[in-house]
């Protein structure tokens, strides 16, 4: 594949980087990334991956755009209230970059559809807002050995970690069990500063691009915690747990479970 003149201009600031070059940009153009959620994190992740030229971006979300989303969900806008978030995101990303094909899925991710949805993608990004989904995505990625870039935000704090199944830790090595429903407040209950979704989403997009390029270090065996009020980034080491229920030596979880059971969603 040769670059068109438009592509040479669009990606010139990538191509001149020693770590990217024409070869790296072609890897980006051929990459397929699946994003869970078209909300606070999915919007900036998808936005930067689209700008970078990631050829195929899959996105799943069952929600429609609401006014309360627009304080942080930057792929949507006031004219798209009531529109499915994945349709809104597709329109935004494809308008930014016609090299990108956005595959939007209007559904909830579940144990019944996740394996089929992510199996043809290179990398998965979790931008979900709840624990059942977070554990479901982790377990599915471990089972399919898909790299997973997981992000979370609440109030003024964000977290990012990169899970490379077989090589490093997984989400269950970090937090063995889901916290009981109600213990950790949601953004609806506790609020979130909109701009920190951009910080965390951009960190996730950067992790994805480094994975595609095979350059630099990623947050393997590491949890990055961002405290916006204190302007502090902290790296916490997370060793792979050989007793982990899903990625350990003798895993007890060998098939996907009903993660919502006993977990009351608001």
């Amino acid at each position, binding site marked *: 594949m040769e*670059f068109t003149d438009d592509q040479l*201009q669009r990606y010139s600031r990538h*191509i*001149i980087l*020693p770590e990217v*070059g*024409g070869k790296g940009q072609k890897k980006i153009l051929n990459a397929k990334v699946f994003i869970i959620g078209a909300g606070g994190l999915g919007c900036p992740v998808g936005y930067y991956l689209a700008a970078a030229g990631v050829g195929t971006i899959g996105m799943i979300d069952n929600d429609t755009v609401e006014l309360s989303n627009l304080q942080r969900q930057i792929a949507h806008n006031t004219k798209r209230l009531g529109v499915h978030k994945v349709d809104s995101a597709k329109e935004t990303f494809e308008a930014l970059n016609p090299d990108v094909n956005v595959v939007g899925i209007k559904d909830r991710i579940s144990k019944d559809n996740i394996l089929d949805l992510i199996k043809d993608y290179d990398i998965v990004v979790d931008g979900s807002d709840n624990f059942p989904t977070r554990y479901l995505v982790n377990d599915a990625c471990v089972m399919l050995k898909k790299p997973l870039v997981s992000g979370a935000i609440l109030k003024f704090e964000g977290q990012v970690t990169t899970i490379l199944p077989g090589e490093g830790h997984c989400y269950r090595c970090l937090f063995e069990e889901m916290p009981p429903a109600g213990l950790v407040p949601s953004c609806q209950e506790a609020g979130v500063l909109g701009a920190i979704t951009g910080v965390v989403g951009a960190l996730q997009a950067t992790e994805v691009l480094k994975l595609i390029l095979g350059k630099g270090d990623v947050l393997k065996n590491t949890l990055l915690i961002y405290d916006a009020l204190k302007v502090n980034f902290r790296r916490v080491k997370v060793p792979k747990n050989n007793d982990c229920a899903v990625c350990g030596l003798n895993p007890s979880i060998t098939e996907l479970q009903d993660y919502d059971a006993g977990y009351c969603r608001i």
Partner: protein
Amino acid sequence: MEDIKIDKRINIKGLICPYTFVKSKLAIEDIEVGETLEILLDYEEASRSIPKSMEDHGHKILKVEKINDTDWTITVRKEKE
């Protein structure tokens, strides 16, 4: 002086920065380590910036020559992938 064997030539006359370097970098990616690339250009600034950028990327500048009133050639040897 010993003649330099040229493995690939590109003509980027009419291009300005940063596309002069974008085209040059893509061309050097296409040759093997140890092979040489000759770049023909007419943008004066690039006659200075391309050699610098190529050296920053680890390649060897063999020659920079003003060949007439408007044009330069730069000869680079690829030193690494």
